[in-house]
């Protein structure tokens, strides 16, 4: 995705990306794992708190209307071990977030993958490997 493109909303029903578990406290029952969406938006805040980090962001549709969205990530502990920190995302950052939407239709999703619109990538959010290294 190139920077400067109008904000887009992609919905891919049945498309399976690598699913990351929302482990522990919360579970994943609220999310429709059969659907994957990608949203381009502007970060409002990264709440880097246990049990799960939340990205608050706004999405502008083709008519210029903005909507507030929330993406739920892993716990900060797991993210930190993959290279994330509280300053990985800052207010104003332009990002594309890919994940599963919630079932009840509100503007919330999991954050399976987060990339900046200028091409930079955030650290992988996968679980630690079975290697001791």
């Amino acid at each position, binding site marked *: 995705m190139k920077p400067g493109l109008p904000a887009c909303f992609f919905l891919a029903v049945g498309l399976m990306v690598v699913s990351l578990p929302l482990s522990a406290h919360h*579970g994943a029952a*609220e999310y429709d*794992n059969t659907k994957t969406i990608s949203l381009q938006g502007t970060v409002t805040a990264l709440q880097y708190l246990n*049990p799960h980090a*939340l990205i608050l962001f706004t999405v502008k549709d083709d008519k210029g209307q903005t909507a507030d969205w929330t993406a739920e990530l892993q716990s900060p502990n797991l993210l930190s071990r993959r290279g994330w920190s509280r300053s990985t995302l800052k207010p104003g950052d332009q990002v594309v977030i890919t994940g599963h939407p919630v*079932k*009840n239709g*509100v503007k919330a999703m999991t954050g399976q993958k987060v990339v900046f619109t200028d091409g930079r990538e955030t650290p992988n959010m996968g679980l630690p490997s079975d290697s001791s290294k």
Partner: protein
Amino acid sequence: MRTRIVFWVCASVLLVPFLLHAQASQTPKAKGRTDDRPPADFTGVWYPSSGSTLGAATPDNPGQQFVWLDSEGKPLKGPLPLTAWGQERLKANHPTGPNTSAIDSDDPDFQCFPSGVPRIYLFLYPMELIHTPGRVLMLFEYGHNIRQIFTDGRGHMQDAEPSWMGDSIGHWEGDTLVVDTTGFNDKTWLGYGGQPHSDALHVTERIRRIDHDSLMIDITLDDPKAYAMPLHTQKKYILKPDWNLMEFVCEDNSLNFLEFEKKTRIQK
């Protein structure tokens, strides 16, 4: 003469610690502590293995369910062998599911209660094992739960108040630490499915290093009040020598998170 006096004063002062040490070494060891060196040392930070253990269950929750085995080591098929009491308890529990959000569940984990044993092993967070004379300590990052496994030869506590993580004593069989835990309350679940247990739960764990970087925990649950037969399972952990435990406070984000959970709850 003066030199001789100085010599004996100095010698006496220097000898005192040695004499005291010799006396201490003849004193019976205080109950509750031993200085015996354990035959194996599991000290380190360990992380649950992702897929190479019996724990892997669903694509979205790898490692977050136990696979229960019968006495011959074969996976149990069909429903768990619950007693009538156990079935009643299972019916009374409301786990998360396709139509039940965390906020509508009575899962004790979602209320930030301690996880119990063996459920604490299901969480994708590290634990640190520390050997100290007479005890092996298990420090769990998730929820900051701790277990003290007394290896000084003591028995279980008598008339102890039932607890979330139980009363653990251990002994060594070769390089295997055998841990015997009783004294649980009946408030924790065995997994996300609401699988119950009673306060008669007796957990036996055999913890051993299968190679330098891998720890295997064989777990047997004996709970005749809730289950018609003992249940077995296994959990593998990987050594993470460069890791330290981090703070994890379940309630940290609770106000924001509660609002988020209310917003995203599944409509019935």
